[in-house]
């Protein structure tokens, strides 16, 4: 009898705590203030054409994002890093990207030793599994339209 009374109090209390917790998440969600006094490192390269951050910085990539960032969405990266507005999607830029000048400096990626123009697909020759000149196996999960993000067209 009295157990029923305490069960009712517990259920009501639990429900109210759940409501406050949900309210916290709703109120918290749209806020995008900077971290408590902390600033995220600035990006060492431009974002243009490389808006798919996780293509190069996914957990299983060669340069994964830090473990502490688990759970953040790709769209969140640029909210803190560099503070730059989100660039257009790759669809809007026509799929393949222009090679930024700082790519070789940032990733030390070898320049493309031939003209890019005229080639439909990098993977036609450089597929990590069956290409004539295979890309390294670590590149397996990178998207095709990301090649020129690091490998600039050579002279």
């Amino acid at each position, binding site marked *: 009898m009295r157990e029923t009374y305490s069960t009712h109090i517990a259920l009501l209390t639990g429900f109210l705590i759940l409501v406050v917790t949900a309210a*916290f998440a709703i109120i918290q969600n749209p806020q995008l203030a900077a971290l408590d006094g902390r600033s995220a490192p600035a990006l060492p390269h431009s974002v243009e054409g490389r808006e798919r951050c996780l293509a190069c910085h996914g957990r299983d990539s060669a340069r994964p994002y830090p473990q502490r960032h688990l759970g953040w969405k790709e769209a969140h990266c640029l909210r803190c890093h560099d503070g730059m507005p989100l660039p257009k999607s790759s669809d809007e830029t026509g799929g393949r990207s222009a090679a930024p000048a700082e790519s070789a400096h940032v990733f030390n990626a070898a320049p493309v030793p031939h003209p890019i123009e005229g080639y439909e697909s990098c993977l036609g020759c450089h597929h990590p599994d069956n290409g004539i000149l295979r890309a390294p196996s670590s590149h397996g999960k990178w998207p095709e339209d990301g090649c020129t993000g690091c490998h600039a067209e050579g002279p």
Partner: protein
Amino acid sequence: MRHLLYGAFWIAIYLVLAVSPLLVLLVGGAPSGRDFWRDFSVGLGFSGLSMAGLQFFLTGRFKWLTLPYGIDVVYHFHRQISIIAFFFILSHPAILILSSPETLSVLRPSEVPWRIAAGVAALVLFATIITTSVYRGRLGISYERWRVIHGYAAVAAAALGVMHIMGVDYYSHAPAKRLFWIALGAAWVLALVYVRIGKPAMMLRTPYRVEKVLKERGSSWTLVLKPDGHRGLTFKPGQFGWLTLGRSPFSIRENPFSFSSSAMRNDEVRMTIKELGDFTSRIRETAPGTRAYIDGPYGMFTIDRHLAPGYVFIAGGVGIAPVMGMLRTLADRGDKRPLFLFYCSRSWEETTFREEIGGLEGRVDLKTVYVVESPNPGWAGETGYMSAQILARRLTTPERLEYQYFVCGPHPMQMAVKDALDELGVPGEQVQSESINFI
């Protein structure tokens, strides 16, 4: 009314304290929100851990906290809200993983950082606490062993939970927020220190000595305890206390038992105990002179809190112990009000205190109805289980709707009697019961 307001006040305080980590974030400013599910899962983790920490207060037997509800309600609330808190805590990683499956990568043995290990260990300990509490009987864990596991696991789980939050360091990075969590943890530790050190230290000043152990009918024993060097305990008839027998009051091994003696005598305390478990089955072996300590009194199951023109006591088995305390007190007070006792037992031979009850009928206006489950041949009284029919047949006075009813016995019996009294039209607020099974 005063108790009602006082009770509502403590529930409000509990609510505010449980969500205080979130309130601090909302009021004091929080870092960037992420997505709803991630913040919701973190919020559940914060609330769940805060609720878990508050258990140290709920189980601290603070009289200012138990007064409006009764300690049985506070303990049952502790049990129910613990399960809710556990599901909040469990939801924290579950939602994180469901909303971002890559979160599972932190559990790779080669990558798991200490802050995640602390969180996982806390979760495992909380699961252990809940499992061993809910399924103690099925797991065959003795009450005493369970209390040891429960106590140490609770402290370790709360400490690991705070370490996890500090290690993740997202919402607790600002110095004021770190200070808040440290203060919260310190408050839990203080409650624990009071319960495990402060209160036992005070109990050292009021020891008892076992004068004798009396064999009662129904595999029960009465411990007669005499205060040793102090004035004894003042309690209300029907209340109970936690007994530490033959050990230091700092021992975690203590058990709750009702006082079966008259509240008008503080030169001795009697506790009547049925052989049911590890501790109780050894009561008969207690040697006179054994040192004992009593933490009490506690409980709302008392005629002194529920005044009425008459009382009806309905007891089953060793549930007669607090009822005997009330009957003996009424007799010592020379009370003239009408009293009815319905006493259910397995057999006439196992009917505890039946001889003394007969004597009490001459001292107070007491009418007793024995309900025997397995009667001997020739038994002319009531048989079987307590029912509305028995109550209606034996409780014919029209004033019965004005009386207070005290029900004490096994849980199924209590529920059956509640239904029977409801059937007879007895208002629920006139039916008092108390369970001191605090697991």
